[in-house]
């Protein structure tokens, strides 16, 4: 792995979960905003993490999902 490869480090979370949570936290909450309107629609309840609680809401949801996941 090069220094520039994207990594996610956590003791608790699966990398795929973290990748989604962190991506949502970045793209929905941050970045340049052009004066005018941002119009988005929410179709998937699991992805309603809008606002300052983006990460934690999604972490809690993910935690629930992980807890309910059948063991293989």
């Amino acid at each position, binding site marked *: 792995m090069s*220094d*520039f490869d*994207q*990594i*996610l*480090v*956590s*003791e*608790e*979370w699966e990398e795929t979960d*973290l990748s*989604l949570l*962190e*991506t*949502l*936290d*970045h*793209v*929905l*909450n*941050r*970045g*340049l*905003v*052009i*004066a*005018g*309107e*941002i*119009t*988005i*629609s*929410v*179709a*998937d309840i699991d*992805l*309603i993490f*809008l606002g*300052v*609680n983006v*990460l*934690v*809401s999604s*972490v*809690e949801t993910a935690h629930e999902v992980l807890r309910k996941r059948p063991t293989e």
Partner: protein
Amino acid sequence: MKLYVYCLVEDVEALSGPVGGISGAPVRLEKIEDLGILVSDFNDDSVPVTHENAMDHAAVVRSVLDRTTPLPFRFGTLVTEQQLRSYITARKPALESNLSMVRGCVEMSVKIIWEVSKEKEEEVQESDHGLGTTFLAEKRREIMGSELKAAQAKEISTWLHKSVSGLTRGEKVSLQSSEKLFLSAAHLVPRANLKQYREQTAQVREERPDLHFLFSGPWPPYSFANIELEFKTQFGVS
């Protein structure tokens, strides 16, 4: 027909290959006032927040990260070509200043999830003996718990800042934005410092086994694309 806008770039004359954007639309590079903007055509009135669309947005912005440091736009930015042109023209000095700040850097994210330990809670509860009513005792516990958390969040923020400050160009910190998210920090790290930054954060993690850390990166500098503008966000339900 509107444009979905992904990011602003400098010193990029062409995309290195075909890039697929939201809804699979091909991404192209528009040039306005010597600045490059990655856009794709978008036919609808709103952008659904889905796993796939969020990942597509992130992938387009990330596609240029190995060549330059882009200024990302927020998910869901839909404009006409004329609106985009007016925005760039009117704010060119501010945008260039923002590009200059992030040039050669990437964003690294640190999140700390933590709750007051049982030990601390017991300390707080023990100190409540002698209060007249259960109600007052509970209120006092609540207040003391909040104060304790606030003080500890501040202390951890200062400790984290000191640990990495020599390696970063900028920092954005948010304390206790919710019950469980104790601290959220974004560090703007020059690419040359990335290896050292990672070593330092690994050490930080070892120093505080009582805290749950979540490190991620490198990211395009989403947290440092911060020209303040008035805007309105509409949430529709599809």
